[in-house]
Each structure stands twice: as structure tokens, then as C-alpha cells.
């Protein structure tokens, strides 16, 4: 498994990564996920202000072949979205952990944080 899985991030089983900065979580998809999805041609982002529940589908990434839902890894309110990926979906492939981030959630239930995977746990989940 050659996927890049930064240690400082948390992950969801459904392949989102999460960067926690106090009460705001930045969300994208893992390097492993972008490689499996292949070249992305379209990204649909949630509306800013939308309230999402943990595991609620709130964005869509599409390759030539398929559309895949992205789930909110934590409950809260969408406070920002990464507009550049809506113009250039390839950013998600090229920089999954940087320019390819998708949205930010203002976390409403900090208890959910403990259920997220560490890098080690995520690696294990995709190595099975």
C-alpha cells in the first residue's frame, strides 16, 4: 500500500480525512480514495450554512465513470467550501490533502471526535 496517509490527520472509514482546528474540521478525501476513484471531472460541494449530521451525504465527486457520495465525518454546520475544486476537480487528485480539500464543518458534537480513525487505523482499514 503506497498511499500517502499523513499522521496528523484523522480519517473516516468512508475515506474522508479530517483536520481539526479547535472547533472547525476541514474535510477532504484520502490519497487512497482519489487514486481508487481515478481522474475526477466534477465536484459538487454543499451549501455554506447547511447543517449536516455525521455520515450524511453532503458532497459528490464524479469520475468519468462514476459518481460517489462524500459523507460528513462529523455533525455540524458547513462554514466554508473550497470553490476552486468546483472549477477544477483535478485538484482533488493532485493535492488531496492541500488544495483539494472540500469543506469545513463547525463541529456541533465534540464527542464524535473520538470515533474517528487514526492514520494507523485507517491504513489498517484499507489494507484488508
Amino acid at each position, binding site marked *: 500500500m503506497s498511499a500517502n496517509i499523513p499522521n496528523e490527520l484523522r480519517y473516516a472509514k*468512508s475515506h474522508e480525512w479530517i483536520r481539526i482546528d479547535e472547533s472547525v474540521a476541514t474535510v477532504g*478525501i484520502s490519497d*487512497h480514495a482519489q487514486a481508487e476513484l*481515478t481522474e475526477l*471531472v466534477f465536484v459538487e460541494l454543499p451549501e455554506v450554512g447547511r447543517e449536516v449530521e455525521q455520515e450524511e451525504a453532503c458532497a*459528490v465527486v464524479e469520475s*468519468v465513470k462514476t*459518481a460517489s457520495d462524500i459523507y460528513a465525518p462529523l455533525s455540524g454546520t458547513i462554514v466554508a467550501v473550497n470553490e476552486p475544486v468546483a472549477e477544477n476537480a483535478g485538484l482533488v487528485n493532485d493535492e488531496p490533502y492541500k488544495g483539494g480539500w472540500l469543506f469545513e464543518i463547525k463541529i456541533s458534537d465534540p464527542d464524535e471526535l473520538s470515533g474517528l480513525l487514526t492514520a494507523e487505523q485507517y491504513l489498517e482499514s484499507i489494507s484488508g
Partner: protein
Amino acid sequence: MSSFSPGLKFSQGMLSRTILYEGHQSLNARMMAFGGWEMPVQYSGIIDEHLAVRKACGLFDISHMGEFEISGEDAGGFVNRVLTNDASRLSVGEGQYSILCNDEGGTIDDLYVFRLATTRYLWVVNATRIASVGSWVDRLRAGSDLMEVEVLDRSAHWSALALQGPRVIEFVNAVVAGPSEGGSAVAAVTDLAKNQIGLFRFGDEPIWVSRTGYTGEDGFELLIDGGHVEALWGQLQSQGHVACLQPVGLGARDTLRTEMGYPLYGHELSESISPLEAGLGCFVKLEKGEFVGRDALLRQQSAGLQRHSIAFRMTGKSPPPRPDYKVWLGDQALGVTTSGSVSPSLKTGIGMALVSVNFPKSGGAFEIEIRGRRYGAISVRKPLYKDAAS
């Protein structure tokens, strides 16, 4: 991303593999299940492979497709009695696109029929339809007064490759030597005209080569005994290097055919969709005399078609259209999309739809519903991509 599944989705039971399976793996192909087969969906990437076929050339493993041989004194009469196109026009060494209908005018399969010799025909059929074609043709033959006909399913014997793109003519003769020994009489493979087929040699091995394809580009399809297909694949890869040949998977095969507006069985065609509804009327020769499904098709035509297949493109920024999205005209639900994708050549969403309104061939505006929102689309005359060779 729960719909995201790394690796292959196994549907039911084991999937068949073509002889080239390991070759695809060694090229780092991403594999997918298609019609009971485990096939390469892409190698370098769908868009890259698509553009390679449009600009240079690509090599496809299409060994999953089926082949039937129909031979005997009455073979020609039988073929023309069961297919919609006029097979009586075929000289030895010629082929045509045709449809096998059921009695209701629905489509059992769309196929290519070649006349290999005076009383010997070859059908190339869809992988997903081999069993259905086989059983329907057996029933038709049993009920026919044309006695001297033998039908053989040769799908397990033949492997098939498609070599497609404007630059294939630069090296194909170096791999498959002329002159032909059967079918169309030509000095070299590149002397075949569109839709012609000839019997050549690959080394000592017989190989049928036709100037046909499913991409809209110039190119050839090659049929060889499965025992020699790995050698053929290898030779084409090494000789094709000069023309920037790339292996191409089913992903680009689908976007290439969609840009041309070519139907795909199970999408534009089914046992309940007639070739007339699918817009394939030019391959249905109602005037040629009796054939399977003709009465039903005549009734459809005289009553007026209830459904029409149209090609479309999206008019603004939208998610890619995909099959089974609803089509709207104001408050009126018109039908569904049957195919859809991002066009790598046109860089916009394109597709086909089966709708209840007879739109103008081009310029008819409507909407496609994608995840609860509607996006503008416009009917476009086929082919959607107009710069292909054919």
C-alpha cells in the same frame, strides 16, 4: 463515500476472464465486471486513452464479444430472414451493422454480420447477449423452412482485438501480412474498405480482419484463435509503438461510442426497445420482404412512434449526465437518459435519452434532473463528435 468500493465488485458467481487477463494486469489495468466478464476499464486513464484513439491509436481486448457462424446452402436466406438490414446486398468479404429482433419488434441484439464466403456468414454479437442470441436463433432455425443452415456459437474459439485510430494504418500491415486468402480480395489489410473483411495470416495462423469499429475512427477488428491472441497482442503493442499505440479499456470504449451516438445494448436497446425507437431506422429494411419482427415494426411505424432516442449535450455547467436520469420539458416528464458521460473531446456533458416527444434532431431544449436539480440540455444531431474519420 460508502458507494466507493476499492477493487472489483463481484456480482454473482465467478466472472469469466479473457486470455489476455494477465497481460492487462501486467499493464496495471484497473479491472471491472462487465456482462459476466472481468475486463479492463482503464490503463493510463479514461480521458487519456480516449484522446489517444482520437489523435493516434488504441488497442482494445474485445474477446468477451460473441461470434456465431451461420453456414450452409440456405445460410444467406436465413440470415436475411432473421436480421433487419438487407443482408442480400452483402458480397463475399463485406459486412453491415444489423439488428436481431423478437416478434414484437424489440431488440434481441445489435450485431455486425459479415459474409465470409458464399454460404458462410459471421455474426459478432454483444458479450452480454451471447446466450440470448443463441437460444433465439435456435428457435428461429427450428421454425424455419430453410433447412440447409448450420448455426455454431464460436465465441469460445475466437479471441478479438480492436485496433482503432487514425494512425493504425502506419503499422497494421507489418503485423498482419497480405494478400488476403479469403473474404475480400485485397493485397494488404490497409486496402480493405470500410465494412470489408478479409482472411489474412498472422505468422502461419489464419486471422480475420475487418475495417470496422465502435469508436468512429478509422480502424480494424481482428479475430484469431484464442491460442494465438497473446502473441498478436504483443506484436501489435511492439509494432504500434511507432504510432503511439496505447491499450484502451472499456471506459474509453464507452465514451468514444457515446460521442458517436452509437447505441449500447442494455442502454439504448433492449428486448422492449425497437430499432426504430432507437433511431436505427436506416438499418431496418422494411421493404426487403419478410423478416423477424417486421410486422410489429410496420405497425409501430404506421401508428407513429411513442418513444424516440435522441442525442444531447448539456448547455451549462452541470454534473456529468448518466444513465437513468429523468428528462423534463417544463412539468412534463419525458423519459430517461440511456447513456451519459463527460465527453473528453468536447469537454462537456453528453448522452442519449429515450423520450416521448419527437424533438427536433438538433436544438430542442429540455432539462435533465440530477440529484434533485434540473440542468439544461439540448438535442444534437448524431454524431455528437463530428471530427471522427467515419
